[in-house]
């Protein structure tokens, strides 16, 4: 399966990357990571090195791309224009109370993607 994973550098997105490469190793998925930036306090370079570290230890081949512009629309556009089978994102943090909260990137993708979306909690 051809999978596009959106990573914005948050812990939930890196957790989603770990889960995705784990699955890819067993299922033989073709994984592309789209690095997006949302807030200025998180550097692309920092996210990139976190991503590389996870990919290296996974021992599978993963393509990494940087996506400039609005994260949600960039991911949806790439997923559709390059015939991905699935768009994967992390999301669903828990509040101190334990309530599941869907972030704005996950919400945008769930509402706007025409291909299948997997939300990894």
């Amino acid at each position: 399966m051809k999978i596009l994973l959106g990573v914005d550098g948050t812990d939930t997105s890196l957790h989603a990357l770990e889960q995705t490469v784990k699955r890819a190793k067993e299922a033989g998925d073709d994984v592309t990571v789209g690095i997006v930036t949302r807030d200025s306090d998180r550097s692309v370079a920092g996210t990139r090195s976190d991503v590389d570290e996870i990919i290296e230890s996974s021992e599978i081949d993963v393509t990494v791309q940087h996506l400039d512009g609005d994260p949600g629309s960039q991911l949806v556009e790439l997923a559709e224009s390059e015939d991905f089978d699935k768009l994967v994102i992390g999301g669903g943090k828990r509040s101190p109370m334990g309530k599941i909260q869907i972030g704005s990137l996950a919400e945008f993708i769930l509402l706007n993607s025409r291909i299948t979306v997997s939300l990894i909690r």
Partner: protein
Amino acid sequence: MSPDHTCPDDSAGPFPLPPRTFTDRAGRDIEIRVYDGSEDEYEALVEMYRGFDSKDRAQGIPPGREERIRKWLDNILSSECLNVIAWDGLAVAGHATLVPDDESYELAIFVLQVYQQAGIGTHLIEALLGHGITSDITQVWLTVERWNNAAVGLYEKVGFEVSDSESFELQMGINLDNAETY
């Protein structure tokens, strides 16, 4: 979750201090008390959540299975959290809690199905805020599913205001600075 739990500037209140007793709209005598930390009260809470209808779950809580209910309760009944319980005799009718989050507290309230629409929610949340004020809590926030009109109406009635309406859930806040208790 937005990192900015902006709360309204205006102060709210006044709020009653538990314990409180009242007769609900179905004629039941209800007492609201601060959770005393005893095993009996803990087990009574577990009983209530075991009977909780899954259609009234919101954002993944309360959890469905007993094992997970206990784990969740261990977290929100810990000593840094504030909890009040509405009792109908020895049975729990509802429960409201404040859980710390940096400078502020997250609020949630649960009323068992057979006790809903009887005014218990309003009494519970007001008593919890009164209890919070005496513990020097000033900022309280919550999230609520935006279609849940009954809950949003209840929160607005006690003084919560919408602070973020840009995600799946509404975020609401209340400022208890200078709020009085009675």
